[in-house]
């Protein structure tokens, strides 16, 4: 009897501990928290791990980052599931604001896209002068070209280059053109294994640890410019948006302190993002 009582007591204690533990993990009263819907490159490159503690020290605001592809981040923000949006697809961002989902859009920082591929470069992309030229060659070579295929910022950029080249790669989907429907990191993992070519942002590329035989084959074309923007989710449409905290975050990121911190962030001795807020 005593035994079963104490066992019941132990189970009850365990259950209450779990309940307490869970409620303890939720919102503490008065805690200042915002949610940022973000593209993945800024998280995977470690930028937020570097910036956000500085921001918290300056303002006491905790930033919770949900890092998904730009397409999904835009969709989530449309639904009001975030206070601030940091993505890299300027025309989609401007549409997001024009449709009333976001307040004004600001430039935050930039870097560039690069085309990576096997270091022996079987399709000889490295000789191409422009991104359009490189993509045209890729479409004629035997090596595969992998695409994010997930409506992300990088995918949108890739499609715009195909369009400029007058090529519709999706007609070759499954042969030399491989739509992976995956994030940048997962796409790079697959690309390395397939000995294929792909388009990636430079920040993810520098921070990526499984390059294997891959190397940069094309870079420096102005059309590979990669602009990141920052937008507050429109409080007029989603009343729960923490306007004041979100504005503090945006002001800090686009202000002297945040911009200097972005410029100061390096990985393997390389600067990953160049601040350019007005």
């Amino acid at each position, binding site marked *: 009897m005593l035994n079963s009582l104490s066992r019941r007591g132990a189970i009850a204690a365990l259950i209450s501990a*779990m309940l307490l533990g*869970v409620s303890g993990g939720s919102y503490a009263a008065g805690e200042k928290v915002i949610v940022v819907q973000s593209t993945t490159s800024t998280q995977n490159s470690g930028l937020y791990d570097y910036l956000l503690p500085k921001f918290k020290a300056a303002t006491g605001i905790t930033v919770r980052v949900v890092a998904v592809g730009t397409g999904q981040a835009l969709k989530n923000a449309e*639904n009001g599931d975030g206070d601030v949006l940091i993505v890299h697809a300027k025309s989609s961002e401007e549409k997001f604001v024009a449709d009333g989902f976001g307040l004004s859009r600001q430039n935050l920082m930039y870097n560039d896209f690069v085309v990576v591929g096997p270091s022996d470069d079987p399709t000889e992309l490295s000789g191409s002068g422009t991104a359009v030229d490189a993509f045209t060659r890729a479409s004629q070579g035997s090596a595969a070209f992998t695409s994010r295929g997930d409506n992300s910022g990088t995918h949108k950029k890739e499609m715009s280059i195909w369009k400029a080249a007058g090529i519709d790669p999706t007609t070759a989907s499954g042969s030399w053109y491989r739509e992976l429907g995956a994030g940048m990191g997962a796409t790079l993992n697959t690309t390395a294994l397939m000995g294929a070519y792909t388009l990636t942002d430079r920040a993810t590329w520098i921070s990526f640890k499984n390059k294997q035989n891959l190397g940069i084959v094309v870079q420096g074309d102005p059309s590979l410019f990669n602009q990141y923007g920052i937008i507050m989710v429109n409080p007029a449409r989603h009343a729960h948006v923490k306007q004041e905290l979100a504005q503090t975050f945006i002001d800090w990121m686009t202000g002297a302190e945040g911009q200097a911190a972005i410029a100061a962030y390096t990985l393997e001795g390389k600067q990953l993002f160049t601040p350019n807020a007005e």
Partner: protein
Amino acid sequence: MLEAFGLAFRLVVSFDPDLYEIIGLSLRVSLMALLCASLIGLPIGALVGFTRFPGRGIIIVFMNALMGMPPVVIGLLLYLMISRSGPLGALALLYTPTAMIIAQTLLILPIVAALTRQIIEDLHAEYDEQFRSLSVSRGFALVTLLADARYSLVTVVLAGFGRAIAEVGAVIIVGGNINHFTRVMTTAIALETSKGQLALAVALGIVLLVIALLVNVAAAVLRSAALRRAYV
């Protein structure tokens, strides 16, 4: 692979606070989901297994089919419900551990209910004649079945726990994999894979496996202790 094992060992013995935070949240979320799913699923399974009513066959097929529900679909459906634009948006559940518990509860509830139903039904078939000959009440019969099936039911619960702690599709959608808030073992593994940190990802996987092993060892120890008490 060897590198991953070494890394896993170093991670655990270094008492890296980030790692222990992630392990703690994984256990909290999955154990809470298991508790909720058991509180709902065990009685439902037992009742369906013990009673006969019209439409029972359809319900059983339905319960069994739901065991195959992909986590990502659960995550999506729950997201649509608790998104700020969804019907339950005002509760502000999205991107919290609570949302992750709900997702995993929904995921393992069919497993707990369906397996419980099968076990109770089989045992009932076995005991039915005795129950009739002793003309025991239905309530007493059900209690007897549950008591005698308790070790099988522990296995059911462990199966539910295994499914919960191993899934990534649902919690990454409704939890958001937010550092220091909703990041659990599986979403951390997904993140490290996407960073190309394959050895670290595998190391985290090994740690997760060890945790699952420890939980099962604990269940086995409890069981043998209970058996010893029963036969003293």
